[in-house]
């Protein structure tokens, strides 16, 4: 029983990072209705910015965090300008494949800069785990969970209580009508992309600071985990993204504990598949939100 509770707590902690990744993904997908496969790799580029700063200049934790976010934003905007902004309506699949091509490009760029397979990343919080009765909670996990909750709240507030959010929701509802009321759609989409990359950057920083190492494979990992959590949570829902991440984390930790790493991944994909088939809208999304036809 103690194990079960401990595993659930660990799952929530790990899952909060998936939720954060899904948050950025949800913003991009909500605004564009297109899939950005390069999402993880842009975060990975940010992580490499941070690692270089850490290794070559001995930068502190906050500077590294800032570098990760800045790197993610810069490469995110690069992806938006190249793969999304110039694509006409109806070329959603071209955007997706294009973002895949840029994924390959970013991965190779990272390997060129730092050719070894793994590099160290500064730790978030050292020190012993907190003991709560028989349960253990790592302090860095707590920071990660807090970060995820905070950021989700900020995104939700920004979306529903600011002028930027109002414009963004107008674009999501109908880009032409948004244009007609004076929203500069192109600019707003780019800003949303930058914001989503920044969220991804924060997620990436927290995950890597917990793992204390970075590899070029992190890009693919981040894209997959974010995508799975987003789909489980339900497209287009901010709380859904977070919840989807937490559920994924809990499922993973329990199945890892019971059956080992391979079956853990099998379970994660099975839960995703089962959700899609039985409840395509995910936990909180609406089925109507999903449209990635290769024409529209």
């Amino acid at each position, binding site marked *: 029983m103690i194990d079960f509770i401990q595993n659930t707590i660990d799952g929530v902690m790990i899952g909060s990072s998936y939720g954060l990744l899904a948050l950025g993904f949800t913003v991009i997908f909500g605004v564009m209705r297109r899939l950005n496969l390069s999402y993880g790799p842009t975060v990975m580029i940010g992580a490499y910015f941070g690692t270089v700063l850490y290794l070559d200049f001995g930068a502190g934790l906050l500077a590294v965090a800032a570098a990760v976010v800045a790197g993610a934003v810069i490469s995110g905007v690069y992806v938006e300008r190249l*793969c999304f902004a110039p*694509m006409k309506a109806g070329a959603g699949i071209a955007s997706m494949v*294009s973002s895949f*091509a840029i994924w390959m490009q970013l991965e190779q760029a990272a390997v060129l800069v730092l050719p070894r397979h793994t590099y160290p990343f500064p730790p978030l919080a050292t020190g012993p785990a907190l003991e709560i009765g028989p349960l253990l909670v790592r302090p860095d996990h707590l920071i990660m969970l807090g970060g995820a909750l905070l950021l989700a709240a900020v995104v939700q507030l920004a979306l529903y209580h600011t002028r930027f959010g109002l414009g963004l929701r107008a674009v999501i509802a109908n880009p032409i009508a948004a244009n007609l009321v004076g929203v500069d759609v192109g600019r707003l989409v780019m800003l949303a992309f930058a914001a989503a990359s920044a969220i991804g950057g924060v997620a990436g920083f927290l995950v890597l600071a917990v793992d204390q190492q970075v590899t070029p494979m992190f890009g693919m990992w981040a894209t997959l985990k974010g995508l799975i959590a987003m789909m489980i949570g339900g497209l287009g829902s901010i709380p859904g993204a977070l919840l989807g991440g937490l559920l994924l984390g809990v499922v993973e930790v329990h199945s890892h504990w019971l059956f080992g790493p391979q*079956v853990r991944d099998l379970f994660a994909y099975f839960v995703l598949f089962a959700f899609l088939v039985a409840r395509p809208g995910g936990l909180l999304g609406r089925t109507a939100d999903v449209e990635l036809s290769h024409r529209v």
Partner: protein
Amino acid sequence: MDDYLVSVLSNIGVISFVALSAYLLLLTGEISFGQQAFFAIGAYAAGMATAMWGWPLALGIAWGAAVGAACAVSLGIPTLRLRGLQFSIATLAFAEMVRILFELFRYQVDIDGEPVGPNGTDGFRSIRYIFDHNIETFDFMMLIYTMLAVTLAGFMLLERSRLGVIFRMIGEDATLASLQGIAVARYKVLAAGIAGALAAVGGGLYAHLTTYVEPRTFDVMLGVHSLAYGLIGGLGTALGPLLGVVIDVGLLESVRLFAGYRMIIFGGLVALLLIFRPRGLLDERLVNRIGRLFRNAISGSTRTGRGSR
């Protein structure tokens, strides 16, 4: 022909089957990230048939195709009502499950004092059919291309047939197609089955070409690549995905000129290409224009023929 060239060409031929498999689904309007699963299933099934059960190659590959088609149909039915991204991610989840199941799959028999068969993450080694039967790599390449030619001929026939029109109609607008009285569900499952069989044939050939397979070969990367080939080469004709494979595997993998920078250049070029040609090099419009020119040339020559008489 030198060995390296034979191996590159063989690879191109084999990968073309997965690319065509993804392309067929694109025609019906579905983006699949999971065709690599059927490639894997075909590889394992055909490999087991020849290496473990002593079946002849043709039967082994046909068996692989049948298993691939059956699995594709059983994936196609539950995913029927999924649209767009949901479908894509469901196929991705399925393919990853298949890959992990192969990582867990151990089934070996003793052949000549040696264990043969799938062995978890270590993969499935000694699929030695072409060595045991003294088949030259060149001849095996010719076999791959013969089968590819047959497949392409099938696609050409499909494009002209009622079935091809139905597939494209469903791809354009499934609702409209169903209003026209087309049993959309049935045709979608049919397309999924054919696409599964195609990928599985490629897998069967691949297993015998390389003599061993590993689960990690069949990861998401292979799936997304197969999809990308159609988009790069063009969605207007079945030659499009082939062109995509040739450009990626052939031109870039074999020309070592850009070593270290290959993806930086290629990735950027693909992104630029898709801005100007969002449906690939050989898109519908270009194919249509070439077709018209071709027909005009034929009718023109018959006209001059008649004139000279």
